[in-house]
């Protein structure tokens, strides 16, 4: 059984030692506490939620600052989101230095906001400069937009013609308008327009019709030259200030490590407080209940009793309790646990299906993505994630799973003869032909279809075998032998009937197939309705149970998707190779091919890998699990140190 046994833990202790006991449990990371609603805190206890600087706000500020420092500091930049090793003493020290670190955080944020402000005003200056440079030399004060009777504004026409058209129109409709040309170039004619106030609306409409662009109201005063000179003066100043501030910020970046330590210290404290607030008890005692792995139970209670004054006991689970589960498998099977967990973890009475799922997942994923090139890329990428960047969490587990699956893909690529599709053949214009160790699905698709269904039958037989084993374990061996086992005969028999001539040359197994199928069908017919006393009803029910053949038929047919996916991957690869090489074996042609191949094969790899993962999962969840596995358990979630940036260096 690859499900770890759990023991039920009950512990009663002194309220004064509550916090320390909790910290020890968190350090151990091996106990799952029962979920309990937050309890009212007795008056005699410290108000745990007032600890000076710690708050949700400071935690997120620290997180933002720590992230920024990681990005900027060349030393830690390569770590990405991996956790930094730190010693426990540094961690506790950070907690003690919290006042100092938070003050540093304040200064850091202050510098950042100054930089942001400075950048904004520099950008604004630049915009103004861009707008006003063509107007340099205009004698009009920008703040002057109107007098008592007139309005005046500056702007540009798109062309001399537009200006002339406007002037013609204005002469008729608003003769009091005067237009003074300021400057002209290929793109626009810059003018100043003066008109009487009551003509303003009409003139504006007319200007718009002729494509006039008004000079934006910048809220500045003075002549353009003056404004531009002011900006020029400032800009040096601003630049120097910016450089100085950025240098100061860079100096702070080294403090990033402190921000990380304090952030995780606060995380630990808040987790602890949350857990503490859920512990029921009296004024001087508390108690907790939960689950702990059976193997660790004795050792843990002994250790706790040594350090603290507690009463602790453990016992195996009783009928009706549902302990959490933790899976325990061989290193090669472990990466595939995530597939089972995503469906539903086993309940503590179930058998863990991971060791059965692992080899078939490896097989089917490899078949669907069969290509040496794609397999190498997939294994390479995930290998980098796993071994170099030491990815953890869900990403890490998926990477491990894909790493192994990629190897499967390489194997099947060798068997089917695919290396980035037919890239070598296309590039060498037919001279190099990658051989397939077994057969080439493009040439013999029917062979692959038959083998897909054969592997499917093997998959189903394994699932049925698991069902028989489970039934036997609970003493229902007879049920297993009459409900499940006959299907072995029926399916094999029918298979032999269809293809009996081609298995052993010269020998027709069709008759044997016939016998097997009939034998199996008879057993099902006789025992399918064994609940009924009435013999006629019993036979009818037996007949009905034979109807399940359709279910098996559709299950087996489902495996032909392997053929479809193999063809899809190969053909898309071929298309990209062919299209990419359309310019022929010329230098330009090779260049185009490289670009096209990079884009196309990356796309194909992503799509095919996704399809392979999804469809292999689906085959397992629907065809495989439905025969013997339901799940319905929940995973063991021990109280443990939750950190974002730091990982404890376990060296003493």
């Amino acid at each position, binding site marked *: 059984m690859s499900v770890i046994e759990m023991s039920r833990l009950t512990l009663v202790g002194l309220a004064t030692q509550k916090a320390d006991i909790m910290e020890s449990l968190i350090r151990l990371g091996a106990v799952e506490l029962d979920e309990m609603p937050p309890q009212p805190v007795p008056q005699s206890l410290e108000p745990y939620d007032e600890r000076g600087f710690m708050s949700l706000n400071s935690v997120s500020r620290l997180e933002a600052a720590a992230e920024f420092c990681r990005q900027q500091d060349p030393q830690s930049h390569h770590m990405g989101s991996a956790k930094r090793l730190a010693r426990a003493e540094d961690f506790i020290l950070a907690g003690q230095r919290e006042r100092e670190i938070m003050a540093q955080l304040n200064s850091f944020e202050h510098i950042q906001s100054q930089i942001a402000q400075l950048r904004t005003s520099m950008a604004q200056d630049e915009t103004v400069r861009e707008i006003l440079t063509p107007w340099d030399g205009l004698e009009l004060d920008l703040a002057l937009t109107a007098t008592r009777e007139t309005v005046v504004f500056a702007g540009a026409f798109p062309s001399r013609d537009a200006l002339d058209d406007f002037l013609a129109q204005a002469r008729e409709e608003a003769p009091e308008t005067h237009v003074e040309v300021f400057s002209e170039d290929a793109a626009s004619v810059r003018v100043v327009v003066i008109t009487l106030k009551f003509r303003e609306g009409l003139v504006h409409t007319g200007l718009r019709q002729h494509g006039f662009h008004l000079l934006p109201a910048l809220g500045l005063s003075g002549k353009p030259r003056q404004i531009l000179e002011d900006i020029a003066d400032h800009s040096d100043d601003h630049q120097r200030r910016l450089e100085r501030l950025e240098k100061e910020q860079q100096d702070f970046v080294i403090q990033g490590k402190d921000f990380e330590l304090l952030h995780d210290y606060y995380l630990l404290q808040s987790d602890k407080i949350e857990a503490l607030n859920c512990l029921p008890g009296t004024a001087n005692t508390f108690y907790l209940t939960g689950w702990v792995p059976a193997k660790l139970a004795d050792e843990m209670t002994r250790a706790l009793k040594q350090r603290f004054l507690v009463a602790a006991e453990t016992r195996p689970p009783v009928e009706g309790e549902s302990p959490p589960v933790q899976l325990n498998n061989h290193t090669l099977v472990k990466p595939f646990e995530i597939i089972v967990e*995503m*469906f539903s973890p086993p309940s503590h009475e179930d058998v863990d299906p991971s060791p059965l799922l692992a080899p078939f997942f490896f097989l089917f994923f490899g078949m669907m993505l069969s290509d040496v090139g794609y397999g190498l890329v997939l294994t390479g990428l995930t290998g980098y994630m796993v071994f170099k960047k030491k990815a953890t969490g*869900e990403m890490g587990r998926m990477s491990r799973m894909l790493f192994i699956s990629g190897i499967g893909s390489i194997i099947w690529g060798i068997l089917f003869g695919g290396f980035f599709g037919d890239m070598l053949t296309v590039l060498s214009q037919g001279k190099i032909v990658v051989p397939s160790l077994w057969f080439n699905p493009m040439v013999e*698709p*029917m062979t692959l*279809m038959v083998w897909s269904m054969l592997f499917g039958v093997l998959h189903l037989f394994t699932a049925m075998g698991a069902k028989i084993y489970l039934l036997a374990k609970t003493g229902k061996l007879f049920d297993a032998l009459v409900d499940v086992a006959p299907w072995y005969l029926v399916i094999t028999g029918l298979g032999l009937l269809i293809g009996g001539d081609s298995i052993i040359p010269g020998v027709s197994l069709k008759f044997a197939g016939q016998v097997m199928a009939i034998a199996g069908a008879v057993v099902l017919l006789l025992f399918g309705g064994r609940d009924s006393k009435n013999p006629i009803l019993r036979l009818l029910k037996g007949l009905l149970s034979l109807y399940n053949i359709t279910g098996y038929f559709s299950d087996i*047919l*489902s495996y*032909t*998707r392997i*053929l*479809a*996916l193999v*063809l*899809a991957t190969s*053909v*898309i690869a*071929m*298309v990209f190779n062919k299209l990419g090489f359309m310019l022929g074996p010329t230098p330009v042609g090779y260049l185009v091919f490289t670009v096209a191949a990079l884009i196309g094969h990356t796309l194909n790899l992503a*799509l095919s890998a*996704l*399809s392979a993962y*999804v*469809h292999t*999962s*689906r085959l397992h*969840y*629907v065809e495989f699990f439905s025969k013997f596995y339901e799940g319905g358990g929940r995973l063991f979630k021990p109280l443990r140190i939750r950190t974002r940036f730091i990982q404890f260096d376990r060296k003493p």
Partner: protein
Amino acid sequence: MNELISLMGPGLTLLAGALAALLPGIGSAKGVGRVGEVATGVLTEDPAKFGKVLILQALPGTQGIYGLLSWFMIMNASGLLTGSANLSWQTGMAYLMASLPIAFVGLFSAVYQGRVAEAGIALVAKRPQEQSKALVLAAMVETYAILALLATVLSVLNIKPV
């Protein structure tokens, strides 16, 4: 009249390829677009879910790929791609019939798969760890596109251009 009949072979074959390429493409565009709309909604609340919603958005896109694949197979098998085609109207008709499964099933299954994927995004928005379930639910619809692809491909591979 004879000219018309001699044109029908390549014409019907091209029609077969065109149907295979265009109908599933329309379906995928609709499906993927629909999911994209919902995905952006989720991202306004939580941009960190981008990777997860992107995968769900990609799922209805496979029918378009299958359609293109079928187009390619038809063009290749009939010889039109290499320019050495000598197709009678009967062969053209055969290719047309062969392209029908993926053309129509691709269209409809992509649209429906888009709807399931859209619902899957709602699931992922609430419970990000259940993404795999959303993926598998959407993949159930794809089963039929795959079967149709198989029907088309195996038919095309067994037509002897004459």
